């Protein structure tokens, strides 16, 4: 199964999103949080994101969902650090709203979707209307 990483400035946000997404899938689906800093403070940390990506990978690749600003910058840096360290996990950042994207991605990953399908599912969440 494709693994999922949730990168948020806040530990609580990342864990809350994981809780919601896990309701939709079985316990074997890997959703790993990289929320906040090592000390629990608000922020993003590329090294923690690297670790989360590695824990989420079971060989089929990892899709990363991000919140704002430095979550994107730190995640891109994490991809570069992995590459520099010779770790060839397939990783893609999804350009999607973090909560809705995580839920769509989790469902798609759990039913055996490919990396491409999981990213597409996450990014489709951008277009879903809520008030119709």
């Amino acid at each position, binding site marked *: 199964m494709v693994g999922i990483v949730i990168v948020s400035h806040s530990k609580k946000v990342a864990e809350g999103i994981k809780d919601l997404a896990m309701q939709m899938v079985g316990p074997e689906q890997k959703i790993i949080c990289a929320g906040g*800093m*090592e000390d629990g*403070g*608000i*922020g*993003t*940390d*590329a*090294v*923690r994101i690297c670790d989360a990506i590695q824990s989420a990978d079971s060989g089929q690749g990892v899709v990363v969902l991000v919140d704002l*600003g*430095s979550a994107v*910058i*730190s995640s*891109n*840096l994490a991809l570069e650090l992995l590459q520099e360290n010779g770790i060839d996990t397939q990783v893609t950042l999804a350009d999607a709203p973090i909560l809705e994207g995580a839920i769509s991605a989790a469902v798609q990953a759990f039913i055996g979707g490919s990396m491409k399908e999981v990213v597409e599912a996450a990014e489709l969440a951008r277009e879903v209307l809520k008030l119709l």
Partner: protein
Amino acid sequence: MTTINGFINAINDELNKNKEYLTELDGLIGDADHGINMARGFNAVVTKITDEDTDIGATLKKVGMTLISTVGGAAGPLYGTAFMKAGGASVGMTRLDSETVEKMISLALTGIKDRGKAMKGEKTMIDAIEPALEAVRVGIENGNSLIECLEMAIVAAEEGVEFTKSIRATKGRASYLGDRSIGHQDPGATSSLIILKAVTAHYKTKVLEV
């Protein structure tokens, strides 16, 4: 003797002195954490570096890696990348000349631009660093000393910080404010100026000592 550890400690001292100031600037157009972030990052850095760290490049890479995982805000991966790239231009060196300093700032700036997908005029640290780099280049062309080049860079960076007041932010937290970001000075450009001033002041006292 000037050690790279001395420079890093000088930067840490100045960032800690300006912690509230930088945080206030960030409070006006961002999330009020820039000074706290930078102080936390450099406080962690100084615990990892000693006078035994003589290889400037290797030390700066260590500084960069530490900033990446301790600063927290956008400044973390951006300054982290900048210090790592500057380190890449000074591996194995124990002293610096103007040409190396130019290369270090140049690679740092390119690193920041690539990492944050920003350019000059977006109200970020780039607005201080790019003019500083250009000033160093002019200094080298005119045959100025390293201290003179750094002093020219400070003047240019000060103008760059001043310029950030006149423009709208299109990157980072301040971009959420749109036109309301005009009139305020960018915290990241300000911390870049503080770092440049700290390095220059430290270098001057050490050179005068010899």
